[in-house]
C-alpha cells in the first residue's frame, strides 16, 4: 500500500502510542486519490484499528511553481495566475495581489473601485464558505447540504460571470482599480442575491445545526486551543473558533473595510462544531457588508492613474488580507524592472494544514476526514 519513499517521520506525539495487544499497526495511505481529501492531499495514517496513532501529510502533487512563474512575468501578466491558487476564492487572491502591487507603486484604487472590490470579495467569501459547507457535510455523510449550497453558489457565480465573463478564475481586478465598470443592474443583482441567500443560510442551519448526529460528529472533534492555534500560525475561521477575536479586516483594515460595520464571530471550544458555527455566522456578516457596500457605492472613476509599463521602485513589501481561509499574504521584492524580482505567497491553507497532525491525535479515522473538511483547505493553494 505504501511505496518505497514513504518513510514515516518520527512524530512528536507526547507518549508513543502502541497498538493494543500487539495487534499489527496498520499504515493506510489516504489519498492522493481519495474522495475526502479535497483534491490531491495525501495523508499517511498509522492506525490501530480505527484509532489514529499518527499521521503525516504529503503535499506537492499540485505544485506548479507559481512563485517561479511570477519571476518571468510582468506585474500585470502575473495577475491572472493568482486566481489559480485558491480557485474557490479567486477574487480574494486577486484583491491581495493587486493591493500589494499598488502598495509597492504607491497608488490607491479610487473609492468606487474599492466598493466594488469589497462587494465581489465578500460574495466570493460567501461562495467559498458555501463550497466548504457542502463538501464538509458530505465528508461527514450528510449528502443533501452539498446540493443546497451549490444551488445558491450558482447565483454568485452568475453575478461574477455577468461582471467579468468568468465564473471561477475571475481575474476581476486590475492593479490600480478595476478594468470593468459594473454592468447595468449589478447593484440590483447583488441586492437580490442578498435577500435570496439569507433565508437559504437558515435552511442549511436547519439541516445541520441541531442535528444530533452532526453534533456528535463535530463537537469535541479536532480541538485546537487558542495557544496552539497561534503557535501553529493558524488563521481565519479556524483561529477565531478557538476564541481569538482577530480578523485582518478589523485589525489592519485594507481596501475600505473600515467604512463598514460588522462583527467578528468567534467560538470558544476550538472544535469542529465551533468552526462550523463561526463560518455560518460569517455568512451573515459578509451579507451585512455586502448590503452596506451596495447601498453606499459611490460614483466616480474605477481606475487610478497607473503607468502603462509598471516599474515599481526598488524595495520590498508584505501585505496580507483576510481571505476566506485565513491570512493570505503577498511578499513582493521589486528590483525596479517590469518584472517582480520575487513574489512570495503566504498561503493560509498551507499553514492551516500543518495543524492537522495536532488536531487528529488520538482521534478516529472518521475524525481525520471531519478535520480535513473543517480546515477548509484548497490544494491549489497548499501546493501552489
Amino acid at each position, binding site marked *: 500500500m505504501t511505496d518505497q519513499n514513504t518513510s514515516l517521520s518520527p512524530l512528536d506525539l507526547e507518549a508513543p502510542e502502541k497498538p*493494543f495487544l500487539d495487534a*499489527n499497526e496498520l499504515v493506510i495511505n489516504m489519498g492522493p486519490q481519495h474522495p475526502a481529501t479535497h483534491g490531491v492531499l495525501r495523508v499517511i495514517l498509522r492506525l490501530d*484499528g480505527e484509532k489514529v496513532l499518527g499521521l503525516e501529510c504529503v503535499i506537492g502533487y499540485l505544485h506548479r511553481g507559481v512563485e517561479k512563474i511570477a519571476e518571468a512575468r510582468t506585474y500585470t501578466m502575473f495577475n491572472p495566475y493568482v486566481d489559480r491558487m485558491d480557485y474557490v476564492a479567486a477574487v480574494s487572491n486577486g484583491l491581495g495581489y493587486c493591493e500589494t502591487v499598488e502598495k509597492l507603486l504607491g497608488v490607491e484604487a479610487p473609492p468606487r473601485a474599492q466598493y466594488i472590490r469589497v462587494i465581489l470579495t465578500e460574495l466570493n467569501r460567501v461562495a467559498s464558505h458555501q463550497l466548504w459547507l457542502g463538501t464538509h457535510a458530505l465528508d461527514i455523510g450528510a449528502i443533501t447540504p452539498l446540493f443546497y449550497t451549490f444551488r445558491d453558489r450558482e447565483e454568485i457565480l452568475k453575478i461574477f460571470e455577468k461582471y467579468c465573463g468568468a465564473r471561477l478564475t475571475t481575474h476581476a481586478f486590475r492593479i490600480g482599480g478595476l478594468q470593468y465598470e459594473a454592468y447595468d443592474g449589478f447593484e440590483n443583482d447583488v441586492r437580490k442575491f442578498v435577500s435570496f441567500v439569507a433565508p437559504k443560510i437558515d435552511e442549511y442551519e436547519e439541516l445541520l445545526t441541531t442535528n444530533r448526529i452532526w453534533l456528535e460528529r463535530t463537537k469535541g472533534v479536532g480541538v485546537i486551543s487558542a495557544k496552539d492555534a497561534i503557535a501553529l500560525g493558524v488563521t481565519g475561521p479556524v483561529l477565531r473558533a478557538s476564541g481569538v477575536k482577530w480578523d485582518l479586516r478589523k485589525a489592519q483594515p485594507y481596501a475600505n473595510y473600515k467604512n463598514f460595520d460588522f462583527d467578528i464571530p468567534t467560538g470558544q471550544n476550538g472544535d469542529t462544531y465551533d468552526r462550523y458555527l463561526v463560518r455560518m455566522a460569517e455568512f451573515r456578516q459578509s451579507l451585512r457588508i455586502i448590503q452596506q457596500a451596495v447601498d453606499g457605492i459611490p460614483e466616480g472613476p474605477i481606475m487610478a492613474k497607473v503607468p502603462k509599463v509598471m516599474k515599481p521602485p526598488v524595495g520590498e513589501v508584505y501585505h496580507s488580507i483576510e481571505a476566506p481561509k485565513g491570512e493570505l499574504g503577498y511578499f513582493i521584492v521589486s528590483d525596479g524592472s517590469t518584472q517582480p524580482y520575487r513574489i512570495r505567497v503566504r498561503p493560509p491553507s498551507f499553514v492551516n494544514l500543518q495543524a492537522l497532525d495536532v488536531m487528529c491525535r488520538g482521534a478516529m479515522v472518521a475524525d481525520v476526514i471531519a478535520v480535513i473538511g473543517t480546515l477548509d483547505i484548497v490544494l491549489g493553494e497548499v501546493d501552489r
Partner: protein
Amino acid sequence: MTPVATPFFFYLLAGIMVIGGILVITRKNAVHSALALIVTLLAQAAVYLMLYAPFVAGVQIILYAGGIMVLFLFVIMLVSIERTVKERQFNKQWLVGIAAALALGGLFIAVYTKGKGIFPTHEMSGGEAQNTQIVGNLLYGQYMFPFEIASLLLLVAIIGAVVMAKRRL
C-alpha cells in the same frame, strides 16, 4: 412433511463435515481454516434439521456460523497472512495427534456398541412442531441449574474481557 432420501442426505452432510474438518486442520491460511470450519458448522446445522431439531439448527446458524465465527475471522484478519503462511507450522506432533484421535474414535465406538440402548431410535414425541417449546421447557425446567451456571460462566468471561480491554481505554 415426510422425509426424502434421508440416508443420502445424511452421508452427504457427514462427508461435508469430515472434509471440512480435515481442511480446518490442514490449511495453512488461517482464514481458509475458519471458512472450512464454518462449512462444517453449517453442515452440522443441517444434520440437526434432519434430526427434527430446527430450533437447535437455527441457533447453531445464528450463534456459531453467524456470530462466533465472524468474531474469529475478525481476529484472524488482523494477523498478517503473509507472515503466518511463511512461518513453519509448529505442531509437528503427528504421532501424538493420531494416537489421541484413535483413542477418541475407539471411545466413541466402544460407547456406541456397549451402550446402544441409551440412544433413542424412535422419533421424539411432539417432533418438529413442538421442538422450540420442548427445548424451552427443558432448559427452564429440568436443566434450570446448569443453564444458569453456564450463564454465570459467560458473565465471568465478559467481565474478564472488559477488565483486560479497559486497562488501556
